[in-house]
């Protein structure tokens, strides 16, 4: 193996470095981008093709208990996408919830090198980490669920922000998590009794705290701990017609931060932007949401785009999945996690014939088109909830081509246009916007630019994707088919300085790392020796405190981001 790689004639867009499309060379050595290549480096001629930092998915469900249960309960889904062992590639199966290697290979061939698992229940963190090691071609991060955490809710009730922060710090370090995830805060605890919360001021049974209080406290705790990412929030009332009000109220909870840091990341906002009162009169409220977003630089969202076809929905939002089940009456799995959170899984089919689905489809696109700043609206499908991530290229094409949207308009329920503003939007995103929405924006929002993610400046991690697209002689608004094909399959995907995928095939065994965070707190805030915390742990969990933390052996290449908590 040569010491390095030199990529010549690359059409580089590197938003974080301010490069908006220049033909240049990129030198790689020892897994990092360097100024100059070593003599004898392997030379890759990009031939003017689009070259971007490795793709980053800031919200995807690919590993862990509920994802695996999605696979477990869906042999019919596994019938699609089966490949046999080929070279270094393991067998893969599945379409909407592929096997770990399936996810990894498909992400790799799309140029993705970093993926954040959207929801990890702390108690079952070990499982997520085990699957991370079986998703070998992406660096992984895990959002850790705190939405129904009893200790946190008690701290919120006592209005003790510092204690909440200390609990978060202890938990993230124990389970090797990356950031705070709140999924329907309070609602998952209410679901322990088969209930839900109906708005952000609706108190949680017994704990008598409101979602708004949980969100605000956790935002403060997050900033006290100086975690790289902000609070990552799945709002209350997902998928309920009229829920845009909840979303707007929630956005108002985000305090402004210093600089251009966000204090709140709202995920899959498409599912939270519905007007109307029932499924019959559901309408798009993307304009209201975008207006609020455009006035709040402290908020970042991702789209949560849905795409037509079959998929599997899975979320920690247990009550929502049950409501969905009652609608579809197909199959339903639920998994409550003691003292922490819940989850639910059901398969769905988004149909072009369904007005509701068409409205949902339009809303996601509208959010991306109406958000003035691409750094504030990232591309996602909340894989696999809106659609499997393999649909990203199609979404990119839709965003870049008005013509493609018009063509799609012919295919969908004709009433859609009365409920959505999509077809009035002329905006077509450019290559730069896409680069922001698929990697640079993610890296910035997740706060991992410092460890060399999402950009190509010297010192950065050598995660590079070269797509068979030549922006100089391609008009994406016309040649959207080519855009789609190009983003589906890189010429080269380079991960930490190694070519991992070439022309759609993975060519090496992977060796990913897992990125986690640890906030140093003063000893009096160490929950591991807090009598009240440990007493409750001993009495109410079913595992021993000593058997709870994820051992280092589960992170063979762990990367820890340490912060100093302001406690």
């Amino acid at each position, binding site marked *: 193996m040569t010491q390095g790689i030199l990529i010549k004639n690359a059409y580089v867009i590197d938003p974080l470095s301010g490069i908006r499309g220049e033909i240049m060379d990129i030198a790689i050595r020892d897994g990092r981008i360097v100024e100059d290549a070593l003599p004898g480096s392997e030379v890759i001629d990009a031939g003017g093709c689009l070259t971007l930092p490795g793709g980053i998915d800031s919200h995807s469900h690919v590993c862990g208990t509920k994802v695996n249960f999605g696979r477990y309960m869906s042999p019919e889904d596994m019938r699609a996408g089966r*490949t046999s*062992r080929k070279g270094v590639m393991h067998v893969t*199966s599945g379409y909407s919830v592929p096997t770990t290697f399936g996810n990894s290979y498909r992400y790799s061939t799309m140029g993705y090198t970093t993926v954040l698992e959207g929801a990890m229940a702390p108690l079952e963190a070990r499982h997520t980490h*085990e699957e991370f090691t079986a998703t070998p071609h992406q660096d992984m991060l895990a959002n850790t669920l705190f939405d129904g955490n009893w200790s946190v809710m008690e701290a919120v009730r006592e209005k003790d922000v510092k204690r909440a922060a200390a609990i978060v710090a202890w938990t993230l370090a124990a389970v090797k998590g990356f950031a705070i995830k709140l999924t329907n805060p309070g609602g998952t605890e209410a679901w322990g009794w088969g209930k839900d919360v109906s708005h952000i001021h609706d108190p949680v049974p017994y704990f008598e705290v409101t979602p708004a209080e949980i969100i605000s406290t956790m935002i403060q705790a997050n900033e006290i701990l100086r975690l790289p990412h902000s609070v990552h929030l799945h709002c209350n009332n997902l998928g309920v017609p009229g829920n845009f009000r909840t979303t707007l109220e929630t956005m108002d909870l985000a305090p402004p931060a210093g600089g251009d840091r966000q204090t709140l990341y709202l995920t899959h906002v498409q599912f939270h932007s519905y007007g109307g009162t029932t499924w019959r009169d559901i309408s798009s409220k993307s304009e209201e949401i975008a207006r609020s977003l455009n006035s709040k630089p402290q908020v970042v969202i991702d789209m949560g785009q849905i795409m037509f076809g079959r998929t599997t929905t899975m979320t920690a939002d247990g009550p929502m999945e049950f409501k969905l*089940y009652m609608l579809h009456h197909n199959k339903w799995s639920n998994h409550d996690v*003691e003292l922490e959170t819940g989850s639910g899984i059901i398969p769905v089919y988004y149909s072009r014939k369904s007005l509701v689905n068409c409205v949902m489809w339009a809303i996601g696109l509208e959010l991306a088109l109406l958000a003035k700043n691409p750094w504030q609206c990232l591309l996602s499908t909340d894989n696999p909830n809106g659609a499997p991530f393999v649909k990203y290229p199609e979404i990119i094409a839709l965003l870049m081509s008005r013509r493609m949207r018009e063509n799609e308009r012919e295919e969908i329920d004709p009433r859609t246009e009365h409920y959505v503003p999509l077809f009035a939007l002329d905006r077509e995103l450019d290559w730069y916007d896409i680069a922001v929405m698929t990697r640079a924006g993610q890296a910035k929002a997740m706060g991992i630019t410092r460890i060399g993610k999402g950009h190509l400046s010297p010192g950065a991690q050598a995660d590079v994707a070269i797509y068979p697209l030549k922006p100089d002689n391609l008009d994406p608004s016309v040649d959207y088919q080519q855009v789609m094909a190009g983003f589906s399959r890189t010429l080269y995907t380079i991960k930490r300085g190694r070519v991992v995928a070439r022309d759609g095939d993975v060519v090496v065994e992977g060796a990913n790392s897992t990125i986690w965070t640890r906030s140093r707190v003063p000893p009096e805030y160490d929950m591991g020796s807090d009598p009240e915390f440990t007493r409750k742990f001993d*009495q109410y969990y*079913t*595992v021993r405190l000593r058997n709870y933390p994820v051992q280092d052996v589960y992170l063979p290449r762990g990367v820890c981001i340490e912060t100093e908590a302001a406690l």
Partner: protein
Amino acid sequence: MRIEDVVCPFCGCLCDDLVVSVEGTKVLSVENGCTLATEKFTGDHRLAHPIRRTGGAWEKTTYDDAIRETAEILLDAERPLLYGWSGTFVEAQTLGVHMAELLGAVIDNTSTVCHGPSIMAIQEVGHPGCTLGQVKNRADVIVYWGANPIEAHPRHMSRYTTFTDGFFVKSAFRERKVIVVDIRETDSSEIADEFVKVTPGGDYAVLTALRMIVRGKGDLVPATVSGVTREQLFRVAEICLSARFGAIFFGLGLTMSRGKSKNIRNAIELTEELNRHTKFTISPMRGHWNVYGSNEVFTWITGYPYAVDFSRGIAFYNPGETTSVDLLRRKECDACLVVASDPGAHFPRACAEHLASIPTVQIDPHVNATTHLSRIQIPVAVTGIDAEGTAYRMDGVPIRTRKLFSTGYPDDVAVLGRVYSLVKEAKG
């Protein structure tokens, strides 16, 4: 030396609060564990070294030779079966699946003879479940259906359900109602508030009747359904409906009786129906301590929880066709590797006979019924005693077992890793 918080590698309860005293490589005492746990820690019938059968007799062999011969047997076979896996840890199971991929083998775990039907039912209708702590802290109604936890999971009731106090259940056995459904009185039915005695094979109809009552179609329920009176059915439905949080646990009495997966499906649909009124969950009582781990590993690598056939390169799954018992009954297999389980004791006679007629290799610490069917046996360390690794509790909570001391035995990963590299070498 006293070692605290030891994880028990016996049943699916995976109790992790044992205190084990050891001296050198000997276990002196086990605290907090049940009889089965203590037996596992203190019992000692370990095979000292690999053995192979020549003619009618056993001869001692080396690890090198045994491993090489195992690889050869597997490489020669046209329909090899890799069976077992529930008594070992996740890392070894992972190797097993990768090996099956390369060999074009069928890989199957012990679900095939226990909760395979439950998995099939879950694949039809899903699984509203929860972790055991959720039951401990909230449940006021507990149903054991076709399960006898006292025998098979002795501490289930005292650690997770009936007797343990939880956050919202301060005085457990006074506040929780226990319903036991079975075809006969059992130890567990002794402590039930309501014992429902069903005629053998009648579970499906009883579940159907309960669903009807919960749905408000109770008028159609006849005076007795499979031996259960209409009055009792209504009483049971009323207890369930008035629960704040109910939990159903089902065992082999439901999975392995007439109707099989359809019984479980019906029970799951009853749970779903009850969720329209209150909160209910349902969970299988998994037997082997890490059988759920093998389901998880198989699933994340192949997409299917058990009975995965790689003979065509891709993963194919079809219980009834690719499950071990069916393969052996049809005499399809021409070689078998048994890891950490005892099919000789659990499989029907015809299957065991076929195992004896083909080259069967067993990787297991102990001499057991399968030893008598095997051509080679390779002893390994016992996970949870002299080896460590990940295991999944019956509710999906992963726990790392502890290694109490070192013996000279290699663990499953060491042995399988060497077989795997030989296979990899041969397959290029």
